[in-house]
């Protein structure tokens, strides 16, 4: 048990990154998800490039690029900022596919009916389309949230003092107990992941209230 306290100390960094990059990912997912369906070709083109670049290259490569390569262009970002931006943009790109496909999955009749009722675009989105699409997005977002949590473990490789870093420090001081230390790290991640799963299920249940 003596290893748990320092590991939890490191976990704080992971959770901080998790929360902030989730917010960024949400923002990017909705921006790019709507952007892919925009009226203007330029907007569709730009969002397509963003989504394909971040989905087509690897998360760790993006993380390294932000941290090691950006300074060459005289853009200095801290390791923390690099981690948040890379994770947020990467999972934002994946999330935009969830947003896009769920917006398209709302039956066309819903859009037609709300136009017939003389609803404006914002009202139509807010009251008719998004509430239905949101319910369909939740399972996809849930999966991505777990992937994002796992992705926070990579920030160790860009020198952040996260749970993996703390574990590696503990390991070098207690080499005979390294399997126990690694096991604790896995268990801690599992507990956080499981808590997230429960939270997502709660949201899914809440979104389903009052709908058959």
């Amino acid at each position, binding site marked *: 048990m003596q290893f748990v306290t320092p590991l939890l100390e490191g976990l704080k960094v992971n959770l901080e990154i998790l929360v902030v990059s989730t917010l960024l990912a949400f923002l990017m997912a909705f921006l790019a998800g709507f952007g892919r369906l925009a009226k203007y070709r330029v907007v569709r083109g730009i969002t397509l490039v963003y989504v*394909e*670049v971040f*989905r*087509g*290259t*690897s*998360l*760790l*490569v*993006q993380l*390294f*690029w932000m941290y*090691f*390569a950006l*300074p*060459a*262009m*005289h853009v200095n970002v801290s390791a923390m900022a690099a981690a948040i931006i890379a994770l947020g943009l990467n999972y934002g790109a994946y999330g935009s596919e969830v947003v896009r496909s769920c917006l398209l999955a709302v039956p066309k009749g819903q859009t037609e009916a709300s136009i017939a009722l003389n609803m404006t675009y914002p009202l139509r989105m807010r009251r008719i389309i998004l509430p239905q699409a949101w319910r369909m997005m939740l399972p996809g977002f849930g999966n991505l949230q*777990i992937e994002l949590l*796992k*992705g*926070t*473990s*990579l920030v*160790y*490789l860009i020198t952040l003092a996260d749970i*993996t870093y703390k*574990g*590696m420090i503990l*390991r070098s001081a207690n080499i*005979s107990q*390294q*399997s126990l230390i*690694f*096991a604790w*790290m*896995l268990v801690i*991640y*599992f507990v956080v*992941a*499981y808590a997230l*799963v429960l939270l997502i299920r709660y949201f899914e249940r809440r979104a389903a209230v009052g709908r058959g």
Partner: protein
Amino acid sequence: MWWDWNYAWSIVPELLRAIPITLAATLEGFVLACLLGLPMALAKRSQLRWLSWPVTAIAEFIRCTPLIIQLFFYYYALPSFGIVMSAMTTGVIGLGLHYSTYLAEVYRSGIDSVPRGQWEASRALNFSRGHTWLRIVLPQSVPPTIPVMGNYLIVMFKETPTLSAITLVELLTTAKNIGSQSFRYLEAFTLVGILFLIMSYPSAWLVRKLEVHLGRRERRAASHGR
């Protein structure tokens, strides 16, 4: 100027030489994941609680914990139990085991998508269990899963840079080594990104094509009343 074209061209051959390792780790890991995923899917669906429960729990644990820590465990902790593996072997096993839990879900959804009537008809025709599985259930559950499996192959390919954490010299490690020799990281890491993109994008396009093709074939088969 930030970007040096001459320098960028000069490091391309060295980066290209790392591609076979990345591809080998991907393919070997994928084959392992496919092979492990099937018994895992069958065990999870099993009616024997003592089999389905532990397998489900272990698969869930592997799926919800980061690959990099799993790799550290296999690479650094297993030798103290007398199991010593090279970085490549560890990487392939780690990657394969991690994604076998994903593929098990893919297989399971494929098997569950076979209509109940097919099972009932097999029983009515007095087919044996083996015959039902091999000739009726699996031939129908495999085709719809192929595009999904293709997607996971691409996902695993993009996951290989994680193996750099256990000292495997794949694309990303090569780029990092090049960068640390010259203190120029921009070209090396940008090129790695471009290489990943030009390898994964056409593959993703092929998978999408396959998906459309299989969907069309399925519809045609359905309309012919097969």
